[in-house]
């Protein structure tokens, strides 16, 4: 780090985090304050990840944190409704939640209402039963220093709790608006709890309207999928050039539950790190982790996943597919941990890549740790170019090279897009992919 650079937030982070913590007050129950204090201690002990941190070997986060003199930003100035509208998905019949820097904008939101539905700002629900039981309880968060930083310093976020047997009739579209006038580090924190037999679909998108002030989001979503509940969780990342993001999703699943997670990263944001981890705290669960990253220019996308098979008789299926254009860089880490008690585990993992740019690159590493003997686990990795045979076949029918590539990329990503169970979202993403490939 050069000494003549002004790096207020980065310096404060490495020097005096406690002073930063003093700025943060909400939500402020004693329990939360005590969790925050512990998180701060952990963060201080761990420090920011470096290239020597095993989980960050291929993503130089320090470089991105030093890139601009970020200030910690905890509040939100009003933002015109047209901004959130930019993230709207055509034809999507949904509830809408607009958050600006993590703060709920009730006037721009259409919240689901009714028996069994609790939804609102985290700061307003710090003593709700779901919050008290589950907040910061997903234990994977403990080993990730940026998640600890979020716990210590977050300002606000979205709390959702569905009571037992509550089934949402429409998806909730959560639009994260990150808005700032100076380069800012923004840390929203969310907790979504589905109790027994509940079901929901949540789609996340984000918008950062300013082009000159850079926003760096370090967000954490905790999800809890209780007995026989089902959550479809989509994350659509189409960030701007002036946006950077570390996005942590930590899920807990209980007996007979189903969790389907999709992370779709498209061109835009130069730096994206997704930590996706699932702790299986009950048996007979189903988990699908789907990822699609289509990257261009100098984009860097790092998907870091962790399937923690704690209990027996659980199925997990992980499929991450990447299309890397130009000089873009992908990283995929797939950790699968099968505990000794987790007999009859089925855990499958696959990471396939199309390396289409001359300097495009992918670093992929499966990490399987298996302590049970009666399990079925597999992993696979491919990186390649378009099949010449297929390209020739398409072109021999009059399809130009660019259109043929677009068809092939669509085909390559179809097992991810086909699994999207919201038709409007599926259609939207297919169109986006076609558009990226036609440019």
């Amino acid at each position: 780090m050069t000494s003549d650079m002004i790096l207020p937030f980065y310096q404060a982070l490495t020097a005096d985090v406690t002073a930063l913590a003093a700025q943060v007050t909400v939500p402020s129950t004693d329990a939360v304050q005590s969790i925050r204090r512990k998180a701060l201690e952990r963060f201080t002990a761990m420090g920011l990840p470096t290239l020597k941190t095993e989980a960050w070997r291929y993503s130089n986060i320090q470089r991105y944190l030093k890139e601009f003199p970020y200030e910690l930003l905890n509040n939100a100035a009003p933002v015109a409704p047209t901004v959130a509208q930019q993230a709207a998905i055509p034809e999507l019949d949904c509830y809408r939640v607009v958050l600006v820097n993590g703060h709920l904008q009730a006037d721009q939101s259409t919240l689901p209402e009714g028996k069994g539905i609790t939804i609102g700002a985290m700061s307003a629900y710090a003593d709700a039963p779901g919050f008290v039981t589950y907040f910061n309880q997903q234990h994977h968060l403990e080993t990730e220093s940026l998640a600890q930083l979020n716990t210590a310093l977050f300002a606000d976020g979205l709390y959702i709790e569905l009571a037992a047997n509550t089934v949402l009739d429409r998806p909730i579209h959560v639009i994260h608006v990150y808005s700032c006038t100076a380069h800012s580090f923004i840390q929203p924190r969310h907790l979504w709890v589905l109790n027994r037999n509940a079901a929901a679909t949540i789609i996340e998108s984000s918008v950062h309207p300013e082009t000159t002030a850079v926003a760096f989001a370090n967000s954490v979503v905790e999800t809890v999928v209780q007995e026989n509940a089902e959550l479809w969780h989509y994350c659509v990342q189409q960030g701007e050039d002036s946006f950077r993001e570390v996005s942590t999703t930590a899920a807990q699943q209980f007996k007979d539950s189903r969790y389907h997670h999709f992370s779709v990263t498209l061109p835009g944001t130069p730096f994206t790190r997704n930590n996706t981890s699932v702790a299986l705290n009950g048996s007979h669960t189903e988990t699908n982790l789907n990822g699609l990253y289509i990257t261009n220019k100098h984009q860097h996308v790092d998907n870091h996943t962790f399937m923690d098979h704690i209990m027996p008789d659980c199925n997990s299926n992980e499929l991450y597919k990447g299309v890397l254009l130009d000089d873009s860089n992908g990283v995929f880490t797939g950790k699968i941990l099968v505990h000794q008690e987790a007999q009859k585990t089925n855990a499958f993992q696959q990471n396939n890549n199309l390396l289409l740019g001359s300097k495009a690159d992918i670093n992929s590493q499966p990490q399987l740790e298996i302590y049970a003997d009666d399990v079925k686990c597999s992993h696979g990795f491919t990186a390649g170019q378009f099949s010449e045979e297929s390209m020739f076949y398409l072109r021999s029918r009059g399809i130009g090279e660019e259109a043929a590539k677009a068809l092939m990329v669509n085909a390559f990503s179809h097992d991810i897009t086909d699994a999207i169970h919201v038709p409007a979202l599926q259609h939207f993403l297919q169109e986006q992919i076609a558009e990226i490939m036609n440019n």
Partner: protein
Amino acid sequence: MLTIKNLHAEVEGKKILKGINLEINKGEMHAIMGPNGSGKSSLASVLAGRDNYTVTEGEVWFNGKNLLDLSPEDRAREGVFLAFQYPVEIPGVSNLNFLKTALNEIRAYKGLPALEAREFLKLTKEKQQLVDFHSNLMNRSLNEGFSGGEKKRNEIFQLAMLDPQLAILDETDSGLDIDALRIVSSGVNKLRDAEKSFVVITHYQRLLEYIIPDFVHVLYNGRIIKTGTKELALELEERGYDWLKEELHLKESV
């Protein structure tokens, strides 16, 4: 329509085509026969523009244009169609979407507007009937999991949809059962007219009973060593290729 002059081509440094001469006029049906490995598919590939073949000598003219200067897609747009001996499977590309894209790209090249959805469907239905192509195959991924015969039928269905001026059918008959052979041949016959030409590559005289050729050529070792009429195919069926090879050696040793 198509003039091939002294065409030489190689693949991976291996000489495959060694001086092909062929003239195809409008409305003609040419059959090419010849032993395995003689270069039949290679000739088809060179005409369609497969880029692992290098043309080392010779010319190919198609309607006054230098075919060898054109990209594969432009050859198709100009009206050249190759029904592949081994059609590839492309998972994730729907047959329908593929055809729509192809048709519209060809139309755009000719300055025509994209087909409206209704017109496209109408055309699809009509051509499907022509080759008895099952409509449930339409919505599947391109050739994925198709049986050998279904793939071949799909080639002819595409041929009917794209309506080229010159169609090269590379062993479209192999893999077809007797009924399918009849259906596909009658489809091809219906597509025949005074403006269109065909080259059918086959090992079997049987196909030529349904699709009557104007000319039969024998390709051997990268060259056309004999040209005749449909009777030549019958003779080959009876006698095989050895007598021709002998004739050739006699000629060459003179």
